[in-house]
């Protein structure tokens, strides 16, 4: 059986046999942060085409040949992008914490009851784990993972049921200067997580001599709808306790989520989606 352990703030955060000490995570919403000029390009291209093509049919071939180097004509209907061709205004640091979901909303989303906020943080989790190269798909908002990415600010919360024995959620949001920086971080993480596919790792905190080995088996990194995810299963599985990390980005914000429960399905993705939906993109 598991023995409950607490984090540095005195809150229950895991089981010593095979659970976590500390938690960080990040995830981001949808990948619609890039500017789109689709609508404008359509109208400008049409004006060129009309001016050059209709007056002199004899020139059409030559003009089309010249155009072909620059323009691709596709079938379909042009629709304006959500951001109407403008890069969205980056989410300011002051708005970051409001993206996190309160426990009542988590209960509704996850069909749980009695989740309570255990602690909040505005710093990354630092201190390496034994398998530091796989810290990213294992725990959220870790300093070593974000180092050098240009991130500006982080907000994180840990919520769980009363004794943390049924459900635990670590939500994290990380602001970058610009959407392009968040996207770059996401793409780098997609590659990094895959290097940990099916790895057996030790999550022991190297800086804390009181912690024991925490052996987990990672799943395979999956990506769908611009959302990166990976599961981890404690080696001393006692009936289906499992965790899932999820990372996604929207605008300049990375949404970095971790959750653990019995019979886990896609709870982390549901949480990350709900946070990402709150990130303004216009």
């Amino acid at each position, binding site marked *: 059986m598991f023995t409950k352990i607490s984090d540095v703030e005195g809150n229950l955060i895991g089981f010593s046999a095979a659970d976590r000490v500390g938690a960080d995570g990040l995830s981001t919403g949808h990948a619609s942060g890039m500017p789109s000029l689709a609508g404008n390009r359509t109208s400008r291209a049409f004006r*060129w085409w009309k*001016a*050059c093509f209709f*007056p*002199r049919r*004899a*020139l059409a071939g*030559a*003009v089309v040949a*010249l*155009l072909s*180097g*620059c*323009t691709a004509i596709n079938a379909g209907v042009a629709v304006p992008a959500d951001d109407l061709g403008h890069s969205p205004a980056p989410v300011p*640091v002051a708005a970051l914490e409001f993206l996190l979901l309160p426990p009542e909303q988590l209960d509704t989303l996850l069909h749980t009851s009695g989740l309570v906020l255990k602690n909040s943080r505005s710093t*990354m989790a630092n201190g390496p784990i034994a398998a530091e190269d796989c810290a990213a798909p294992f725990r959220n908002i870790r*300093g070593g993972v*974000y*180092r*050098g*990415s*240009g*991130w*500006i*600010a*982080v907000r994180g919360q840990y919520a769980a049921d009363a004794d943390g024995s049924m459900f635990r959620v670590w939500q994290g949001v990380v602001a*970058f*200067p*610009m959407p*392009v*920086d968040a996207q770059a971080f996401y793409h780098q993480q997609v590659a990094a997580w895959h290097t940990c596919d099916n790895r057996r790792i030790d999550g022991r905190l190297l800086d804390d001599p009181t912690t024991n080995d925490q052996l987990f088996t990672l799943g395979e990194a999956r990506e769908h709808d611009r959302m990166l995810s990976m599961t981890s299963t404690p080696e001393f599985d006692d009936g289906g306790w499992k965790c899932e990390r999820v990372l996604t980005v929207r605008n300049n914000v990375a949404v970095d989520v971790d959750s653990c429960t019995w019979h886990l399905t896609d709870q982390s993705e549901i949480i990350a989606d709900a946070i990402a939906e709150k990130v303004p993109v216009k």
Partner: protein
Amino acid sequence: MGSIARVVRSLMLSWVCLGYVAACSTTVPGSPQAQAPRDADAPTVASSDLARLLLSDQQVSDIVGVTGMVKSDVYSDIPGPQGESYSEPRCAEALYNTMWTSYDGSGYSGAAGQRVREPGDDSYNNVDEGVVSFPDAAAATRFVVRTSLEFDSCADVHFSDTSAPTDSETYFWTIGFPQNVGDTVTVVSTEEGQERYGCAKAITSRSNVVIDVYWCAQGAAAKTPADLVNAIANNMPH
């Protein structure tokens, strides 16, 4: 004749269309940068007189809106390397000022500057004001233009600055996009993980002098270093 005229018209039209579409040009917002020497007719400033152009502690305090700023370091040449290393040395000048990485080999003839900071160990608010002389106004203008082109290529670069091996701390920055405030080029950069803390730098030239300053603080914006540059410019002889 008529058919020849039609062919000529067709050819003319085709060249119009060619010019219109073949370049696939993109128009971007921005202001053209002055290439002509600035204040070329103003008296040149001798290297030995550069320090007189610098702002007093009180003037700096008034401009940045922080009371009691005090001088902490004074230099009379471009400060050389202190054992630090940069991820992209060419981008160091986009973040800081009077950087040897940009001035070495530029042909500058003298430099003077000082760091002015808010007192207190826990304060990171600080200004570095520097003035650098060149042989003539054209050379000073050329340096500013060349440097600002370098800023363009450093925009959004994730830059790191590692101090000398004794403590070897690394600081990560995201270099901002350069913006012109009048004829002054500014860049606002943010430090990784420091919420709203950043550094804003500004550079311009007057006569044969390059005026090069930065201001680091919570929420640092371009206006403050641009105001510092203008105040120094007002000290130039006319």
